């Protein structure tokens, strides 16, 4: 591509047609982005399972730990709260209350911390090949979901077998929509935190502390209604806490066999779909930046 001088002394520059060529690595329209993401669904699942199995394969018991781990946690809670402290804090079936709170909250909490570091953890993949980056936070949620399924099974079985028996009604099946709502909420949370965490790496430290506040604010160890009855304004605000809604719904259907307050359902649904939409759009808008670390 050398220069050619024409009689007027002007340099002519070689021309190439850009017909049929497209800019590389640009953010695509939302529709094709979603389509590409859907095309990668097999990879997301395969990658989550591969990560899971490569982490369990090192252990002698392998997949057994997926069930043993929650079982041992329940045992620990029973030993401390039921056997040594013998506390119930005025809550019916306190062990079940606690177990549901800890496991359901742990699911979201792990998605939160995992999502914050998702871009950083997937840096080598981002530099390696081209794919919709939203696959990273989503695969974090998928991995935690796959971890959560055996936990949920263990929890339901333990609650059904261990002495302070739960009231089993048809409402047990409501746990399925509850888990779905919570998972959607987690996807939105992971996506929005992934972009924030990429912008501000220091957020990882903050998220750990915020998670602890959230833990106490969601009534994992105690009933918010009981504790905050002196502060009606605070209690009212707490009602809109999504985790509190999910925990209340899960406890009502698994433990007490009671109908939940419809307000809880509304709060849970609005949070799930709202954060999913906002978080995903927010993540998608930053698509081009994630390659720079």
């Amino acid at each position: 591509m050398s220069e050619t001088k024409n009689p007027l002394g002007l340099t002519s520059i070689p021309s190439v047609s850009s017909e049929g060529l497209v800019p590389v690595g640009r953010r695509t329209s939302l529709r094709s982005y979603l389509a590409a993401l859907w095309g990668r669904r097999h990879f997301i699942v395969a990658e989550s399972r591969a990560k899971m199995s490569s982490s369990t394969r090192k252990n002698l018991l392998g997949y057994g730990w997926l069930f043993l781990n929650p079982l041992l946690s329940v045992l620990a809670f029973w030993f401390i709260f039921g056997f040594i402290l013998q506390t119930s804090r005025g809550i019916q079936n306190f062990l079940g209350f606690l177990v549901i709170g800890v496991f359901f909250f742990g699911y979201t909490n792990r998605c939160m911390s995992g999502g914050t570091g998702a871009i950083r953890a997937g840096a080598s993949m981002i530099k390696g090949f081209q794919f919709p980056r939203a696959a990273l936070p989503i695969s974090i949620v998928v991995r935690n979901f796959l971890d959560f399924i055996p936990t949920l099974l263990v929890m339901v079985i333990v609650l059904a077998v261990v002495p302070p028996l739960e009231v089993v009604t048809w409402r047990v099946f409501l746990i399925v929509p509850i888990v779905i709502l919570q998972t959607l909420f987690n996807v939105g949370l992971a996506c929005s935190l992934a972009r924030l965490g990429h912008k501000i790496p220091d957020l990882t430290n903050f998220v750990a502390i915020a998670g602890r506040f959230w833990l106490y604010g969601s009534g994992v160890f105690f009933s918010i209604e009981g504790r905050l009855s002196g502060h009606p304004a605070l209690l009212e605000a707490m009602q809109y806490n999504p985790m509190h809604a999910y925990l209340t719904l899960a406890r009502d259907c698994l433990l007490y066999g009671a109908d939940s307050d419809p307000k809880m359902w509304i709060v849970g649904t609005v949070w799930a779909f709202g954060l999913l939409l906002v978080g995903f759009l927010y993540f998608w808008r930053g698509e081009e930046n994630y390659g720079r670390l």
Partner: protein
Amino acid sequence: MADSELQEPNIIAENVQVRYTVNTNDPGSRATGIRRLTNKIVGRQGQTTVRALRGVNFVAREGEMVGIVGANGSGKSTFLRNVSGVEQPDRGRILVRYQPLLLGVSAALQPALSGSENVRLGCLAMGLSPEEATEAFDYVVELSALGSAIHRPMGTYSSGMGARLRFAIALAARPKILLIDEALSTGDATFAERSERAMDELLAEAGTVLLVNHAAKVIQELCTRAVWMHRGEILMNGPAEAVAEKYRWWAWNVAKGKEDIADKLLADVVSNAVKEEINILEPELIKNPIPRHAARPSKKKAAPARHVKRQDTVDEVEETPTPMLAAAEEQVWPKSFDAEMPKAKFPSLPKPASQAVSAPRITDSPPLRLNPSKKRVVLRAANPSDRASSVAAADDFTGRRLASRARQIADERYEERQRLRQEDDSPVVHQDSNR
């Protein structure tokens, strides 16, 4: 370069500039005042801006294998990362015909899993569907030549075996544009033969390969063209033999500590270097791009040539043989220079399926895809002798593949390369031919 300009471009890089802001503990660039105090508190020492690419203009065409040589830190890898779309350049833009594939599948692989599980995972990561991954499995095993080692955990592989597996997985995705960053140097002779063959097939399918390698010999043997990058700029661009030879001579002198000779050589090359510029002709298709900000005007964009500025559709131009061009020539340039003029090639060949390329799916899987159930990938003209369309109709993966026409073309290319290795004085494409 008249010969290669007949080919359609696959990659166009226009004035690509990249700079990184990085931490440094160089005392010279220490901050002052308040800045210094805050740096002290957070434990930082100062920041500096590195210009990794300083305005790279580059075109790679169909069927070209371009070698990139240059010292460490000259911006080769950064350029490949930008071409692959992993990073966005700070200035300038990069246009591609197909999604380039950086040989970086290793990021998706898990050392604890066996080779065969990793083949599946890697194929899915490259965007294949599960069925396609199953089909491609035999091909990967054959190309990587791992034998029974494919069932052992990947963590137990030697570095050469790992590199072979990664290369085979990347090729199983059937990329049209492959970017290789010093990956092939670890394979043994058998694998070198197979990988060359695989890349020849890719080139025969109107693909493009960019190869970064320090061994000038590899570049000379494999590539049709070479580019010498130095401090983020392209110093030389020409036939592989010449460029690699000069680079090798320079690198040898630097290595031997003969700085004065090396500097003289470099000064000579720099003085001869032509700052390349490209005039990108924009068809209407690109003016209406899918990502709505894709047409973000780059600041130093060259104005489109006068005679194509107002061209509306491709078809119109094909029927009337560019009357405006003829008029312009008669006004400004004497007729005797007609042959020398760079031909305004733009509306040469309407590509029937080019809408599919500029349809809003850049991040979609690479176009050539062996999925007999849904033939969604015929991007180029449905010419029966064209490999892309003939393969899309094939039923089984490896059988047809071996019998395919691309195999023949690859053979021809291979023989030609052998012939070229013997007789040195036959330049394939020569950039300075008309200077």
